[in-house]
């Protein structure tokens, strides 16, 4: 399998590519991260795994015993060549708080994040939004449309997610290329306004 990949020139970057940009696609379990990345990626989405050893979530400080567990964390990612010299990588990553090292790795050098949300489980987005704020990574929220999911007015969703007034909120269909591209555009436009303010 690997040799087939290696001989398939389509997986390689153009020779002229000089810069790689990184955006994160985050959200809770089964919110559509893998679908979103797969819809936009020009390569078959890849999965990279990291084995993490960490203190257990249920440690008992008083007893002075730390339990350690080994977990495998997977990230799905895809690639979009945006110009002769620029390539964009999209990393879909889990929102669990305990994967600190993975988050440090993922957020390093990332321009920003798109938080996918599901109107049926909005409260499950808080963890991941909290993590982004901790890591100082700006984000926009895209409500991924699921067939049969309730449609709420934007104001209600903003309130339920406790969004800042400037945080963009859009809807998208992670299965649709144009809709997903628009969601990313909203994110990058927002990042631009923030950069402009910083240097103003």
């Amino acid at each position, binding site marked *: 399998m690997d040799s087939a990949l290696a001989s398939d020139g389509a997986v390689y970057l153009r020779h002229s590519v000089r810069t790689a940009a990184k955006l994160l696609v985050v959200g809770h379990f089964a919110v559509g991260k893998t679908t979103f990345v797969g819809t936009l990626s020009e390569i078959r989405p890849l999965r990279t795994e990291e084995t993490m050893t960490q203190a257990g979530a249920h440690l008992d400080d008083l007893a002075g015993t730390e339990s350690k567990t080994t977990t495998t964390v997977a990230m799905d990612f895809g690639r979009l060549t945006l*110009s002769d010299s*620029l390539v964009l990588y999209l990393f879909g990553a889990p929102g669990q708080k305990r994967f600190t090292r993975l988050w440090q790795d993922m957020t390093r050098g990332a321009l920003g994040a798109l938080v996918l949300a599901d109107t049926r489980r909005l409260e499950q987005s808080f963890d991941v939004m909290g993590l982004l704020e901790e890591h100082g990574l700006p984000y926009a929220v895209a409500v991924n449309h699921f067939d049969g999911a309730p449609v709420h007015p934007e104001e209600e969703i903003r309130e339920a997610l406790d969004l800042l007034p400037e945080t963009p909120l859009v809807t998208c269909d992670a299965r649709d290329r144009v809709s997903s591209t628009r969601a990313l555009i909203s994110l990058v436009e927002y990042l631009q306004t923030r950069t402009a303010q910083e240097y103003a």
Partner: protein
Amino acid sequence: MTPPRRDPGRDRGLVRPYVVTDGRAYPTRNTFDLVTLVMAHGDRPLGGLSPEKRRLMDLCLGGALSVAEVSGHLMLPVSVVKVLLGDLVDSGHITTRSPIPSAQLPEAQLLQEVLDGLRARL
């Protein structure tokens, strides 16, 4: 929509990740980001390289890839790939291109290029 899990026993063989890296958890240099682009030099001898480094070179000799893609194609954890790449940079087999060329390309310009590229896809 998570793709089916691969059988790790089949994909990774019987070798534990840290055997591949001679027990090291960290690379000889801390310059690899997930999107650092790596390129292999075709004129370097491959004899003497470990099987995993050979696989990495075989993959990278085809063209440039990011660290994350190398990890995904070889089905090795990112931390292991970084250790292997560190050694291969040290031995002159691999060169890298930093993902954050902040000196050459300010963030505002990078964002504009990303935006232009995304809009062109609509």
